[in-house]
């Protein structure tokens, strides 16, 4: 996309990959320097999930039925909690302007940022989920599908969330991001929790997992372009 890229269109050129690699390296290094914040986000996930049995009671059959939904809703909330970090500091300290002015295409740089963000905040949720699923009495197959679903679904959450995070850059209303992003998360929640449910009821989760994968591919193409458009609007 070295030629003029439209607000919402363009085909990634080699430059986009170099920009993405730059952003991944830099943001992962930054994330590793502030491990405490990452730990807090993972702990939030664990604590929210732990609170549910305390609220609804320890009945194993009930918990097993609620488990997939609870684990997914908590993943949505944990993902939302981490979103403001994605662009806010880069916006405040001028880095985002420098990225927009760099020779690399902005959607590529933003894809890299989203990838690093997912590796730092989404992947830990995926890794922790089987352990939390055990607390809800999920069987082995269900645990595998839960983790697989989160592996396919949480990147989509990061991608969609990035659009919301870019649109709300510099705005004082903190809850606005949740209002913009959570309705867009609905399909991911339905297919993600549905996949685990399907295994539990013996139907097999291939359809749900395929749909999660298709959603991820769509978001991979569209979300960085929309987020880049939103960033350009925010720095204008």
């Amino acid at each position: 996309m070295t030629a003029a890229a439209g607000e919402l269109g363009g085909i990634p050129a080699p430059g986009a990959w170099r920009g993405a690699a730059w952003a991944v390296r830099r943001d992962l290094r930054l994330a590793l320097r502030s491990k405490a914040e990452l730990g807090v986000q993972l702990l939030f996930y664990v604590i929210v999930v732990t609170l549910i049995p305390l609220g609804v009671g320890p009945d194993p059959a009930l918990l097993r039925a609620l488990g997939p939904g609870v684990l997914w809703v908590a993943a949505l909330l944990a993902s939302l909690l981490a979103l403001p970090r994605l662009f806010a500091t880069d916006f405040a300290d001028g880095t985002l302007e420098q990225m927009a002015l760099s020779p690399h295409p902005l959607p590529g740089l933003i894809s890299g940022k989203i990838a690093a963000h997912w590796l730092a905040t989404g992947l830990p949720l995926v890794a922790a989920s089987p352990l939390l699923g055990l607390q809800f009495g999920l069987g082995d197959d269900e645990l595998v599908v839960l983790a697989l679903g989160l592996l396919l679904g949480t990147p989509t959450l990061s991608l969609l969330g990035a659009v919301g995070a870019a649109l709300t850059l510099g705005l004082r209303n903190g809850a606005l991001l949740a209002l913009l992003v959570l309705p867009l998360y609905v399909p991911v929640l339905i297919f993600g929790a549905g996949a685990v449910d399907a295994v539990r009821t013996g139907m097999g989760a291939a359809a749900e997992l395929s749909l999660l994968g298709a959603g991820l591919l769509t978001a991979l193409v569209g979300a960085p372009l929309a987020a880049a458009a939103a960033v350009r609007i925010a720095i204008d």
Partner: protein
Amino acid sequence: MLESKQLAAQRGAATLFSGVDFKLAPGDALLVTGANGSGKTTLLRIAAGLSHAVRGTLSWRGAAVAPLDPELRAAVMYIGHAAALKDELTAEENLASLASLHNGVATSDAVRGALASWSLERQRALPSRALSMGQRRRIGLARLTLVPRPLWILDEPAAALDTAGVALLCDMLGAHLAQGGMAIIATHQDIGLSGPSVRGLTLS
């Protein structure tokens, strides 16, 4: 070369400035002055291709450019109020990271050399949060030596710099112009830059 015709900018409903014309040929510098809130930063951001003008056109090498035009992006180095430094990274890491973002020279030797030329060799491994305002400003300016660009756009580059820093900045600007570079500098203090190719623009 960079040329503007009848640029105008607004903040909210109020007009910041209008009818701004300038022309920069290789070797030219434009010193933008004006009171606080007169729109110096806005003009620089428009010239760098970051913001859009309400009216008027900006052209680069004879072709009108929209904000974030790739041709202009490849030619401009914009250093704004914010130094784009990360508190968690060291001075050296910050400079190397920014230089490689702009496809500049980011080898360890070059980065250390650039830091040394701004007398920052002892702060090399310090996290940026431990640096003073002037030192942060110096890291921002050190980028100019690592990323060769014909057009420099500097917003208050002398702010927080000490006398030695201002002198270094002036030397650098002089060398840049002598090599056919261009610069737009917003400043409200005399940075000692003079010559026939240095013009002033006052926003009111």
